[in-house]
């Protein structure tokens, strides 16, 4: 049997033939495998970098976000409907009596009803009208208070749970209790609010997101996102701690936003400037309730009518004219009141009637103070479309909290105006609220989800049906890469499929060259056979040649893949680093997010597949070659 050294000597001579074809083969195979090498380097580098961010933000914490279901069946429950109608009848009786007492017009037929008629497949039926006070009272009386929350808490307390937290969109509750407005006041001027946080109406979208994206979280959830040394607790009457989006912070500090082309060092310097400058900055927000907003609407309508009817001499202005104050966050005042005494008396009576039966009917405008304790990534997402590779890569480096403004729940509850304004019957029975269960590790987090996730959401009332079986809609939460980790088995599977596809393609490419080299070597094989080479010797020489060829392809792939990964590192690492620092609220601004990480296992796997591809490519031509009659080949020569 031929020795390794001699095998190498003879195999190397074959590399000197068909050089152009060999070069093309190496390049094509190398490029195919280089993509795999680059993918491995970048994925491993990213995962290592995430680990480097350690305990920043919620990177290493394992939450399950659980959505407490809306028990929509309550709204169809005949007991609830019956009770709501009973409350409404009693209310109407009182309203009728009060109307007679106060001399106010009141028609029972047009009075608000606690139920509404809905059509369900052509069949009419009654359902609770959730915005009606009688319906809300019926819910509060009959619906189990926090039933789902208690059930969830019971489930998770038996499973090594560390904490349970809740969160709510402040604006959601505000809407349930009637329209209100929360408008930031900057430099004495109110910032026009936005109806859609993703499509802001103010110039840069930084502050108008406040009202719609304000969310209340338990302090423990927010603490990782505060600036060093900042506290989320506040005494009653103190400004409410708030974590603001960085673009809003820039606006509050009257800093001009950085251009999209800003370098990583510019962004890092800006973050440093913002973190230093925004700490403990007070922000005033103007609160208006629905009644105040109605009056403001009248004042604005009058101003509009003035313009519209400028030359219309027949136009008769209203007797009572409201006017907005020139100062920010002031109540709408009366500009002129030409009503006669009887009208005024009727209005007073009407007002008293309303106040008796609808406590929130009185106009209210007031400022609420907030104190900045942290900086979050941008709340407005319009400028962050991942249109580039860097944008795409950075899209997973987002804060666990998501975009928005964040305040601690206890502070909201301690602020009388917000507490009153944000009270909702649904909130009281915890419908639709988010609950966060924190687990000590990923395994218990995963096990809890597997055991209690409500997966079949196709049927009507699915969430309620699930809840009866102690199952809820839930997701992992906290670690921004949890999804990536969860996808790891799938990614690994597809990576392996990709490796196989690349290996197969590469084998086809190499087969062309190796097959040609072996075919060219028929004469040589005959000579070697005449000189005493066995079939095994010939096979060994060609296998060695194939291994050398494949190894060269691998070396080329590593060089090319590493170059590609290094380019990505150079191009994106700086930007990703600053985005990660911001998203995870790292105190160390110089922490780096690297995109290159070497995993020997991956490299060996790729090398193995390169070799396998080469050997597959060589197998058929080699088998044909060694089975040939050497005499025939020599005779043909």
């Amino acid at each position, binding site marked *: 049997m*031929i020795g390794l050294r001699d095998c190498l000597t003879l195999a190397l001579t074959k590399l000197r033939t068909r050089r152009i074809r060999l070069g093309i083969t190496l390049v094509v195979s190398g490029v195919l495998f280089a993509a795999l090498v680059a993918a491995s380097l970048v994925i491993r580098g990213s995962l290592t970098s995430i680990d480097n961010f350690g305990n920043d933000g919620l990177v290493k914490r394992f939450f399950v976000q659980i959505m407490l279901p809306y028990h929509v069946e309550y709204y169809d429950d005949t007991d609830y409907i019956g009770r709501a109608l009973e409350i409404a009848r009693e209310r109407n009786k009182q309203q009728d009596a009060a109307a007679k007492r106060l001399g106010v017009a009141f028609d029972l037929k047009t009075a608000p009803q606690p139920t509404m008629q809905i059509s369900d497949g052509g069949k009419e039926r009654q359902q609770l009208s959730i915005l009606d006070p009688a319906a809300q009272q019926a819910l509060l009386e009959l619906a189990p208070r926090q039933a789902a929350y208690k059930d969830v808490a019971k489930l998770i307390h038996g499973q090594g749970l560390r904490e349970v937290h809740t969160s709510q969109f402040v604006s959601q509750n505000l809407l349930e209790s009637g329209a209100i407005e929360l408008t930031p006041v900057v430099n004495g001027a109110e910032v026009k609010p936005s109806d859609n946080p993703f499509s802001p109406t103010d110039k840069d979208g930084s502050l108008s997101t406040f009202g719609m994206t304000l969310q209340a979280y338990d302090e423990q959830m927010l603490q990782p996102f505060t600036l060093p040394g900042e506290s989320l607790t506040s005494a009653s009457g103190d400004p409410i701690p708030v974590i603001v989006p960085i673009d809003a912070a820039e606006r509050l500090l009257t800093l001009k936003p950085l251009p999209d082309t800003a370098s990583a060092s510019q962004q890092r310097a800006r973050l440093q400037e913002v973190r230093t400058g925004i700490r403990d900055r007070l922000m005033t927000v103007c609160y208006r309730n629905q009644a105040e907003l109605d009056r403001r609407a009248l004042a604005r309508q009058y101003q509009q009518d003035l313009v519209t009817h400028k030359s219309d001499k027949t136009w008769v202005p209203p007797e009572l004219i409201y006017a907005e104050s020139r100062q920010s966050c002031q109540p709408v005042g009366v500009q002129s009141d030409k009503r006669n005494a009887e009208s005024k008396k009727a209005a007073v009576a009407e007002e008293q009637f309303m106040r008796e039966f609808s406590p929130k009917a009185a106009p209210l405008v007031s400022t609420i103070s907030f104190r900045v304790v942290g900086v979050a990534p941008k709340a407005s997402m319009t400028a962050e479309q991942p249109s580039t590779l860097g944008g795409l890569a950075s899209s997973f480096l987002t804060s666990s909290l998501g975009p928005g403004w964040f305040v601690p729940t206890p502070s909201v509850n301690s602020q009388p105006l917000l507490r009153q304004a944000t009270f909702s019957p649904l909130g009281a029975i915890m419908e639709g609220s988010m609950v966060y269960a924190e687990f000590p590790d990923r395994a218990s987090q995963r096990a809890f989800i597997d055991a209690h996730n409500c997966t079949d959401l196709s049927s009507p009332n699915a969430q309620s049906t699930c809840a009866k079986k102690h199952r809820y809609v839930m997701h992992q939460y906290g670690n921004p890469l949890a999804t990536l980790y969860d996808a790891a088995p799938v990614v690994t599977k597809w990576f392996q499929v990709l490796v196989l596809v690349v290996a197969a393609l590469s084998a086809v490419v190499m087969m062309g060259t190796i097959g040609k080299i072996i075919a060219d070597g028929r004469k040589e094989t005959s000579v070697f*056979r*005449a*000189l*005493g080479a*066995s079939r095994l*010797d010939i096979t060994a020489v060609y296998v060695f040649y194939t291994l050398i060829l494949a190894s060269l392809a691998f070396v080329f792939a590593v060089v090319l893949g590493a170059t590609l990964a290094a380019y990505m590192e150079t191009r994106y690492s700086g930007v990703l680093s600053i985005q990660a620092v911001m998203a995870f609220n790292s105190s160390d601004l110089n922490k780096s997010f690297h995109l290159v990480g070497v995993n020997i296992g991956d490299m060996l796997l790729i090398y193995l597949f390169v070799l396998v591809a080469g050997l597959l490519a060589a197998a058929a031509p080699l088998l044909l070659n060694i089975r040939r*009659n050497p*005499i025939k080949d020599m005779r043909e020569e």
Partner: protein
Amino acid sequence: MLHLTPDIQEKLKTVLTAFDGDIEAVRQALEALSRERDQNQPVASSDAPVIVELQDVSRQYRLGRERVGAVVEVALKIRQGEIVAITGPSGSGKSTLLNLMGALDKPDSGHIAIGGQDVAGLSDRQLSKLRNQTIGFVFQFFYLQPFLDIRTNLAVPGMFAGLSQAERGRRIPELAAAVGLSDRLDHLPKELSGGQMQRAAIARALLNRPKLILADEPTGNIDRANARTIIELFKSIRERYGTTIVLVTHDMEVAHQADRIIKLRDGRILA
């Protein structure tokens, strides 16, 4: 140069002086003389061991739909130390016979023994070992490895034999000296002349010290002067190593340098 015995020389002179224009008569007389000469060629030794023995060996090839007998019922013995030339017109079966002797091909019928060993029934590995250890091949087109220097080319049969580097280091300079290529060991084949390349190929064939050298048209691709040198080299190898040499040639001058000539026509040995 022809080497004829005085008796044959005298008979040839008689035939040539008696030439009266009858060409056919002269041709028959010359053939008779040739046969007489061949029978009288000196062999190494009549009691030397038989190195190659063929018994009623036949080998057919398929040519389209027909089967053509390349070698037909050939029986011969070649003893150790002999130089035997196989001649015959193209297609007479010379190379096929050589390949059968070299265990590169298998007969359809008959038996072949090389070095006293019947090659029928030997495995690929055993046949390879036989070719490697007992036989040395020399080809018309040399078949040296173009990207290996002469030293490494000479080492190729040793690679398959598992010959140690040290042993190769001893044998190769000796063989190079024997074929007059001591100063060409570090050259590539393309830097050598045709004659030098054939001498290198002969040295390569000798590396494993085979008992038998089979040379297929060894002078077919070189000029006459070099051809003579090659034949002289074969003779000196026989003297030096006692090697048996069987060569296939078209060249009668070369053939007549052999101890014995075997003439083939249509796959059969002419009587």
